[in-house]
């Protein structure tokens, strides 16, 4: 910092952009190292410039923190502002209509009923598949795998998270979907009395069903649930584990009485975060799911669009404000949905889950 002009200007030290909140920081000032008493003029100047440098640095840090908070607020505000005109011009019920007609700006008819149904069904199915497997993997990686192999094996699971979602989409669409067709047809034929396995609105033979998409989503959210649950399981107090073993518990009994109760909240919280990921997954679902003319019947063999895939599918046609606003309204609903799911997940998991 330059030393010349600062002796008197400390109260006016520059505040970086984004700094509206001055008040919350006052309390933290006491944490600073004490300022040495000024003796000569030169030293006093040095001390003042130090104070100024400290202030600038503090404000840069605080400003960045505030920027993060602001960005979330801005996301909500901007999506809301730009969807309001379209919602006002909407001629169908936004919540209960299955139509999504935006080609004619003068006659907008859009509703999120089917988007919500497909989104929730595919994500819930994915979660149902992923939760038990993730629990098993987390236990395997913390208490069953040989100690020397735990790190490399955990890394293998992390590779699943590193694969881009578009590659999952390709694989699900071109490889897994066709491979699952016989199994899906068998499920449909033998269990069609059960609503989830009823014949849906797209052909099972094409593979582009919620069934395929849900399985791919399950694979995609496996690593995050596993990683967070594993971290929590690893924190189980050694005294508890050793106590259980000393009392003669088998490995499974030890896990049931110490590890699972300790990590349960983190496991449920991590699963909620996984659910949030599945709800917002875009491109894999966009590639896999076939579109359908008829409405969703809440069957796993339906096709259709999720919120995210609907928005992405129309992305190249965003030009006029009113039709675009319809998709932004759908995006707002998705944002609120994931916000709530994530917040609940964090609240359940408490301090044990960071990631």
């Amino acid at each position, binding site marked *: 910092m330059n030393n010349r002009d600062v002796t008197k200007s400390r109260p006016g030290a520059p505040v970086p952009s984004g700094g509206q909140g001055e008040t919350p920081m006052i309390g933290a000032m006491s944490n*600073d190292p004490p300022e040495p008493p000024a003796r000569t003029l030169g030293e006093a100047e040095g001390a003042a410039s130090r104070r100024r440098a400290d202030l600038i640095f503090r404000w840069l840090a*605080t400003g960045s923190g505030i920027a993060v908070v602001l960005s979330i607020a*801005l996301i909500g505000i901007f999506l809301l502002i730009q969807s309001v005109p379209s919602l006002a011009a909407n001629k169908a019920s936004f919540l209960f209509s299955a139509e999504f007609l935006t080609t004619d700006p003068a006659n907008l008819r859009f509703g999120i009923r089917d988007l919500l149904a497909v989104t929730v069904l595919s994500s819930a199915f994915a979660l149902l598949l992923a939760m038990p497997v993730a629990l098993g993997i987390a236990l395997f990686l913390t208490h069953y795998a040989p100690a020397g192999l735990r790190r490399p094996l955990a890394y293998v699971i992390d590779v699943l998270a590193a694969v881009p979602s578009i590659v999952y989409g390709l694989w699900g669409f071109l490889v897994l979907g066709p491979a699952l067709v016989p199994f899906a047809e068998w499920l449909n034929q033998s269990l069609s009395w059960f609503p989830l396995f009823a014949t849906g609105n797209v052909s099972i033979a094409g593979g582009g069903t919620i069934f395929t998409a849900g399985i791919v989503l399950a694979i995609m959210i496996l690593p995050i649930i596993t990683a967070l649950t594993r971290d929590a399981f690893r924190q189980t107090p050694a005294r508890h584990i050793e106590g259980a073993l000393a009392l003669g518990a088998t490995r499974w009994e030890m896990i049931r009485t110490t590890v699972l109760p300790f990590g349960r909240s983190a496991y449920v919280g991590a699963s909620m975060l996984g659910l949030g*990921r599945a709800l917002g997954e875009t491109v894999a679902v966009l590639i896999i799911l076939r579109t359908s003319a008829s409405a969703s019947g809440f069957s796993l063999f339906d096709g259709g669009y999720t919120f995210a895939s609907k928005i992405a599918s129309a992305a190249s046609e965003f030009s006029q404000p009113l039709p675009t606003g319809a998709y932004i309204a759908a995006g707002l609903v998705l*944002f609120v949905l994931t916000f709530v799911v994530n917040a609940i997940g964090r609240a359940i998991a408490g301090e044990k889950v960071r990631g």
Partner: protein
Amino acid sequence: MTTTDSLVDRPATSPAFQPISGGRKTKNLFATVLVTLAFLLALVPLGWLLVTVVVNGFEAITTSTWWSHSLKGVMPDEVNGGVYHAIYGSVIQSLICAIIAVPVGIFTAIYLVEYGRGKLAKTVTFMVDILSGVPSIVAALFIFALWITAFGFPKSALAVSFALVLLMLPVVVRSTEEMLRLVPDQLREASYALGVPKWKTIVRVVLPTAMSGMVTGVMLAIARVMGETAPVLVLVGYSRSINFDAFDGNMASLPLLIMNELMNPEAAGQLRVWGAALTLILLVMLFNLVAALVSRFSAVRSK
């Protein structure tokens, strides 16, 4: 203990350690098998997916023009051309994103670890958590609403980078925060005791100690955003030829190229789809590998 003597003197009728009953043994074995199966089950899609991509993509990426040419003037059914324009796009968009997200992310982490107290710090922590859960399509829509609709700028690679910033920021903050918390307080206190101001302590003592972990985190964050598809679908047009200008015009990226070639029914299109997928995985793995190497060669010694 009056009974002890008589008990000790009596001959033991049964051993002090009972054998584990059959039912408990079975349950234990059952759990072991299930847990191991769960792990093996997860390996199936991973292996299947990687093998599929490598087998199908190998032919494309080993053609002579793959790494050095674009698809400019290449017919849809022609096995020719390459993806260097898309690789450039993917890398440049991620790097511009990193240039914005890394400083903000590191400063946010510094705030949370070194300064943050009270309500604001709690809010920031919470919002970072929420931001990490924001779907990429929502981030893309937000940038569309802000940058393109409200400010009137055209679609460009820069807009993509802005959307990626929102996705990268929480990853950088998390990893940096974790690393800064590993730096022992004694180092800070020793620095304060020598009269070093707080900001200089952070810049000269805390950050260098945590540097390798932070670099690892940033590398992983770049790898994560590189594969994002939703922002490029919404915020930039596709181009079959190279465009070096991130501020203007259409620009290809590997995910966008895949989405476009998916609509190409020719065999050459399929080839390019798998080739681009393999290239993308290799690129992501490269950044992951660099991250792993950096963290291996220098790690924070916390104790």
